[in-house]
């Protein structure tokens, strides 16, 4: 933050104030989305009375476990790709040395970091998976039918920080600092976009699964997985 006031530039802006802004929008936005959803759910008389913790957890567990549902077993390739994609997508930025250093710099906290080469590989995996997901949308008929332009944008939004991060790390295409700036900005855009796009599924997943899991388990005595 101080860096920006000492030396205002796009680089320091993206490195300081914009990060805070992105995290704030992300957290407040998501909190707001979840809160309003929970409040709206009250209007529907058939949600809360039937919620059941045991079956909510069963449902979430089944669907977070690779191949935990019949659906995943029927789509082994897609399941493998999405699990690898999501794990790398979340773990890489959280456990990247460069990111942890930034946290340390401003908050004096740090944690275990991924070995640089592994993080690099995981970044490539995210990029490759994104390409696969785009191809799937383009060529698999049933998904092509469902897909709209915004679905591609969402994938690009997610892939961009990884692509630019990779390029910056290997000092390819553009000068390091410029690429790094683009990287930071794209990451911030992604964070900000989460509450306002389908990316919000990262939180909504738990809410819909709670409802459907409870309905299936506690009321219908059958499996939702």
């Amino acid at each position, binding site marked *: 933050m101080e860096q920006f006031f000492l030396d205002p530039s796009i680089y320091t802006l993206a490195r300081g104030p914009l990060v805070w802004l992105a995290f704030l929008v992300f957290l407040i936005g998501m909190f707001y989305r979840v809160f309003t*959803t*929970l409040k*709206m*759910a009250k*209007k*529907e*008389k*058939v*949600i809360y*009375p*039937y919620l059941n913790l045991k079956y909510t957890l069963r*449902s979430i567990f089944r*669907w977070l476990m690779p191949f935990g*549902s*019949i*659906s995943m077993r*029927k*789509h082994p390739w*897609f399941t493998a790709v*999405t699990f690898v994609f999501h794990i790398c997508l979340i773990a890489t930025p959280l456990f990247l040395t460069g990111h942890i250093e930034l946290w340390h710099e401003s908050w004096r906290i740090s944690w275990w970091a991924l070995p640089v080469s592994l993080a690099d590989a995981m970044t490539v995996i995210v990029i490759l998976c994104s390409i696969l997901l785009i191809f799937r*949308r383009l060529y*698999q*008929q*049933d*998904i*092509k*039918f*469902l*897909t*709209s332009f915004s*679905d591609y944008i969402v994938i690009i939004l997610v892939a961009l920080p990884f692509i630019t991060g990779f390029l910056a790390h290997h000092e390819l295409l553009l000068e390091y600092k410029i690429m790094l700036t683009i990287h930071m900005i794209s990451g911030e855009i992604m964070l900000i976009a989460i509450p306002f796009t*389908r990316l*919000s*599924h990262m939180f*909504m*997943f738990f*809410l*819909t*699964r709670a*409802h*459907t*899991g409870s*309905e*299936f388990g506690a*009321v*219908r*005595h*059958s*499996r*939702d*997985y």
Partner: protein
Amino acid sequence: MEFKRKPVTDIGIDETLNRVDEAKIKKAIDWVLNKETSARLKVFVETCMRCGMCTTSCHHYLGHNNDPTYAPAAKVKQTIWDILNKKGNVSKEDIKKYARITFTECNLCRRCVQFCPFGIDIAYLIALVRRMCCLIGVVPQYIYDQVLSHMQTTNMLWFRQDEWLDTIQWLEDELRAEIKNGKIPVGKKDAEVLYLAHGLEAKYMTGLITNMAKIMNVAKVDWTLPDTDGWDYTVKALYAQDFETMGKVIKTHYETAFRLNVKKIIIGECGHAFRTAVYEGVRYLGWQEPPIPYIHGVQLFYELLKEGKIKIAKKIEEPVTIQDPCNIIRYRGMGKMLRYIVAQLCENIVEMSPKDDHNYCCSAGGGMIDSGPPWKTARIEGGKVKAEQIRNTGAKIVIAPCHTCHKGIEDLNIYYKLNVHVKFLVDIIAEIMEIPEEMKP
């Protein structure tokens, strides 16, 4: 890929659309969007990742040569997403398309929900669009006629109360040919059980009532039928999403039970009635669960066999397979009970695959068979998967403890030349159970 269908005329849809204007359409849509929906609609629409995991779970998609427009999420896209995108300003042509998709290309079986990573309730979204159509008055004629009958008579086929009493009287006469002093009590106060029948059983399939009466007499159940309107357990209003009529019918059933002071209600083998009586209906009336136990035929037979109240004289030897009706299996987990019963009745069981709560719908449920002859082709095509499932078992008998599955599979049997007999549990049990010497005429 676009939405391509052969033209079908249904006066319930086409004629109504000639009469209404866009303002009425908008009003109905706005009512549902503003007054009857909330979190579920919003979250389900905004969280669908268009991942296609649900696609192959639907028998309509598979039965129509993997036509993407039949995929579960595609049906949602072409209906409620479209309505939301257009902010409710839709044309009559649009409504016609929505009605076709939601009434005749989805059984509300909820199999796709089991396949969606987010548990998005596609059947709920489809039913929502049916509700909009219903408020406009656009409902397949065959469903609508039955709903009108329910409104006035509380049964599905304009049966009058005196006809009902008359029917039961001569059925009792017939019963006595098989059971000495056999009784079909009507309107008996303080009985243990109130038994309700399917509308069709009173008019065309009376053997089902006689067979149930045989079992009740042999098992010495203290039962009664209603002496008033409300004896028919069907609730066709569920298919139209006419909540008001649905509520009225379900309320009549429970009120009849209270008036006769019985301990529980038992119905025969019917899926939608059971589901409405324990979910949609009671929820609409403001109860969390049914106020008194509401028992399905499968639960009844399970208890009677388990407690030894009926005994089987000779088991069936031919290979049989089991149809798991969505409305009692996926909706109430009776799969194990059903299998227990069938194991008591039959020597040779060959299961379908997939089975139990992952079973495919018969393609007749959720109002599709009730949409009548104009839509039979849609149903038969969607039933291809079920037909293949049955053929692969090599069974000679399909046990289908649901009126809709029963009729639906009979049609599939003819069209796909499966050479099977479709049977109700009640018919099999009545045929092969032991009748104590003193009860024989």
